């Protein structure tokens, strides 16, 4: 059942491609704005690059999640999902995984412009950089989908979503910046182990909360 | 260097002043609701 829901999410996107396209264009626009605002001074960019990257990802994921829930809102698809005899928590899981896939695709497309525009070197340990980034994506998307499940069907959803999302995601911003900076500097794992644990606990808590609460949120 | 007593007094005025203000606001809104309710009841009869 979960796979059917996931296939539905991915299928909508495959047809229109508007979500990925808008996420990538928006992401590149933000990277451009960061390169202008940092004045391309080496000192600023080296210290702030990972922060810039995650801020870009946050803005883009807020946009993407809003779009992915707006589909349901426009065609009132939630009421049909609710009448279907499925566990509603699975809707959350499907949204989570599909959002994770979009975010990862978007990062693949945006990562080269990001490094080249800001003129920084790639991290030496690519494998660790990729795995930590995927892990953090999972955390961001868990919180984002949970928040948009709460905020989506209110009248001011496009304002409420960022207002709720950014405070709730602040532990991930801290952790992600610390982890990425450490990876860029090639620090040993012991130094940033705690941040991986924090992101992991956010994934577990938000995932569980989303799985349980969607049962009540999606209801008519 | 700092006027410690001034900070102390300002904190206590703010905290207890706002708590009293909260009670006044609640009391006024309660009275307004009661008055409206009274009018409604009278209108129905």
């Amino acid at each position: 059942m979960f796979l059917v829901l996931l296939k539905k999410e991915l299928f909508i996107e495959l047809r229109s491609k508007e979500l990925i396209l808008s996420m990538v264009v928006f992401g590149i626009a933000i990277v451009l704005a960061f390169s202008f605002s940092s004045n391309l001074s080496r000192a600023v960019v080296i210290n702030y690059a990972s922060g810039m990257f995650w801020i870009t990802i946050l803005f883009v994921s807020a946009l993407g999640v809003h779009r992915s829930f707006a589909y349901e809102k426009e065609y009132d698809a939630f009421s049909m999902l609710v009448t279907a005899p499925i566990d509603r928590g699975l809707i959350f899981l499907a949204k989570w995984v599909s959002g994770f896939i979009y975010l990862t695709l978007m990062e693949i497309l945006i990562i080269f412009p990001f490094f080249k525009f800001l003129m920084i070197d790639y991290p030496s340990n690519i494998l660790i950089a990729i795995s930590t980034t995927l892990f953090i994506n999972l955390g961001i998307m868990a919180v984002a989908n949970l928040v948009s499940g709460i905020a989506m069907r209110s009248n001011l959803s496009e304002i409420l979503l960022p207002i709720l999302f950014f405070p709730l995601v602040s532990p991930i911003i801290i952790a992600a910046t610390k982890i990425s900076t450490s990876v860029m500097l090639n620090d040993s794992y012991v130094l940033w182990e705690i941040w991986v644990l924090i992101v992991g606990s956010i994934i577990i808590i938000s995932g569980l909360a989303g799985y349980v609460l969607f049962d009540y949120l999606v209801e008519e | 260097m700092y006027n410690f007593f001034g900070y102390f007094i300002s904190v206590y005025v703010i905290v207890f002043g706002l708590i009293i203000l909260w009670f006044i606001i609640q009391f006024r809104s309660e009275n307004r609701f009661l008055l409206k309710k009274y009018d409604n009841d009278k209108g129905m009869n």
Partner: protein
Amino acid sequence: MTNYFQKKNNQWSILVIIILSIINILNIVYNTPMVPDQHWAQKIFYVHVPSAWIGFLSYFIVMISGFMYLTSRDNKWDNIGLAASEIGTFFMALVLITGPIWATPIWGQPWVWEPRLVTTLILFLIYIGYFMIRAYGGYIERMKRNAAALGIVAFINVPIIFLSVQFWSPEIQSHPQVEMAEQPSEILSPFIFSLIVFTMLYTVMIRYRVYVINLNNGMNEDV
């Protein structure tokens, strides 16, 4: 319906709270020792820490009532959640005002990235969103469920937010609550007395607020 304070036991409770608060203030002003390098500023703690305690207690009650509302669908729990969130945000605002006032003379600058203060600020921001959900929530039953869910999500995030800010800026040590536990008894006992008085004040406030909310809801049904 009559005024809340026309009932005998409510009159007694508010009278007791007023007397205890006056005793509390006099006790703090005259009866507590001066700490050498903080002087009067140290006495800010006697209201600052109880305010923070009530704020977190209140948000805990929001979580509990949100949980109870989702399981029982009883409007009583929604009213309690609304009252607790309003009063909790009120006290959190007091914490965010009094914290920087204390920090200005002691730390030399109004804002320091101290974990409890930052956690308070983040919770405060989330609860601004909570009230926006309540105001613009659309269909009323759904709005109540969304608000209950947000109350739960906000509180279960508190430990993570706190831990992450603590590890983020570990160099900040000096904090009211930590210091309070190590204080001698002539400071500790007035502090605990103040904590009890504030908690009693909070119970009176929340009962009064629930009463006013009920009155408001009852009025809307009639019209």
